[in-house]
């Protein structure tokens, strides 16, 4: 079995100073800049008026009664259930009772929901624009040659990741091109930003994506645009109606006498 000869490519040592460091530095500075840009562009959450507040909190109240019914005695629970169900079904808590039964307004035409979408757009723009600029900058100046050799061996699968922009078939995957270094920085600088900006920064790519994934759908489900509060109230009334009541106070004396030792 013949040992493959170790590939050696003679690189100018200046590559390190003129490409590797500048790319890293630019990436970090863009991250910091993006963090502050996002803070500046963030709009304060819109203030709710009293009726909206009432609509949302009444629903939450019903949910609280439904999930904590066991702290109440049966008569108190039944009284609450009757009051809440009657109010929900008659639409007493609705913000706009005259719109009852109509289809919910199209979220695209509603100005208040447009604002939320604009916010999301702004966030995405803050990601896309600098990334496009940096990538084209790197492509224009540094594409087409390798800049460093990783100090550990890699399998052939990494070739497409690390040698983007260098179309050489037989080169060892340990050689790395500048655009690949850019990608590595893009995904790997999270901890650097945590160090510089604190853990709740909005500089890095991965966190941004995670936030979009988690926060978005839940919020939208509850009170977001396009949901019909009347339907939510009716569903909640039904949820309350099917509760089989028991109380945590049933048999509490026996539990106490068995469970506690002085």
């Amino acid at each position, binding site marked *: 079995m013949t040992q493959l000869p170790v590939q050696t490519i003679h690189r100018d040592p200046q590559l390190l100073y003129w490409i590797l460091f500048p790319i890293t530095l630019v990436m970090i500075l863009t991250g910091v800049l993006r963090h502050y840009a996002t803070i500046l562009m963030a709009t304060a959450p819109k203030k709710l008026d009293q009726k909206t507040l009432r609509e949302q909190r009444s629903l939450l109240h019903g949910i609280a009664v439904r999930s904590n019914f066991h702290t109440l*005695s049966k008569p108190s629970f039944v009284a609450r259930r009757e009051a809440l169900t009657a109010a929900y079904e008659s639409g007493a808590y609705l913000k706009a009772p005259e719109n009852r039964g109509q289809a919910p307004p199209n979220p695209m035409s509603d100005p208040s929901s447009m604002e939320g979408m604009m916010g999301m757009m702004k966030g995405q723009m803050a990601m896309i624009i600098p990334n496009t600029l940096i990538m084209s900058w790197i492509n224009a100046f540094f594409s087409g040659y390798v800049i460093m050799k990783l100090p550990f061996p890699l399998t052939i699968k990494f070739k497409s990741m690390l040698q983007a922009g260098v179309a050489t078939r037989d080169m060892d995957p340990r050689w790395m091109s500048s655009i690949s270094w850019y990608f590595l920085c893009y995904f790997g600088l999270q901890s650097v930003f945590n160090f510089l900006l604190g853990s709740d920064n909005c500089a890095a790519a991965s966190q941004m994506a995670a936030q979009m994934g988690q926060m978005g759908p839940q919020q939208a489900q509850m009170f977001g645009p396009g949901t019909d509060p009347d339907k939510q109230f009716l569903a909640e009334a039904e949820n309350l109606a099917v509760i089989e009541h028991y109380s945590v106070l049933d048999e509490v*004396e026996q539990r106490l006498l068995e469970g*506690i030792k002085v």
Partner: protein
Amino acid sequence: MPPSLLHPPSQLSPSAALQLSQQAPNVLSESLSAVSSSPFSLFSAAETPELWIKYENLLLSCLRTGDERAAHQCLERLTTRFGATNERVMALAGLVKEADAQNPEDLEKVLKEYDEVLSEDSANIPITKRRIALLRSMGRTSDAVSSLVQFLSFSPTDGEGWAELADLYLTQGLYQQAIYALEEVLVMAPNAWNVHARLGEMQYMAATAPGASVSYQKCMAEAIKRFSRSIELCDDYLRGYYGLKLVTSKLLKESAKPSKPSEEGEFALPDTRTMEKLNELASAKLSEIVRRSTAREAGWRGYDELEVAAARDLLSEETSAHSARER
């Protein structure tokens, strides 16, 4: 445990509040350089929410102990950071104004300011609450109750509001309404043992109040259950044991027979044996608490002195009654 500026100081004893407000010169002498949100904060300590919580709690403690100069400084810093239109800062500013008021006319003026704010933005919750508290401290209880009910009709998930309403009703002797309001607090915080015990106390008061219209046995039965639940959740809670002992002793003395609950789902009194056991349990634990906290043992010092004294009185009353009967 020394009082910390990071917790709201409303429950502290006067001496602890004084201790906190004496930290004011130290806290206020710290420079405000950390407050900027410019990019240069990269190189200085980052601004933390704790800092502002500290200022807020310091403000409250200082108002309580009469150090109004420091309170004004705290308010000034909070205002420069969050702006005068921040709801929470508005409420704190109102609080400082109330404290500065020299006579009832000044208070009326503050009240009018609150009304103006609320006519512009009726959903300003901190100011709504301040207005209710001011009405209450001015002695206009019925106004306070009606505003509070109005507030809770648009914000029924506010546990603080419900607790305040329960307290207001209780001062007026409206026990059933107070119990209803306190049950709402439990709906919001189902495992709050202090609220369970408080509800037991209210049931007891409702049962023993002169001219009570509600079923005596039902209220006493629920009181026992509430106290038991409170002990189940926190097995060192003095008020829970105290109430349990008080109610069971009273029932045993009257040798009440458990009757069938009149309505389906209502609680019935436990049988005499169970009540005796509960009474024994409460006496044993109470005397342990009294003994250990009087001896200042480690881990038993957090009890309020007045509560321990009350427990001691309850226990000694019991023993003296026993010895009198034996003689």
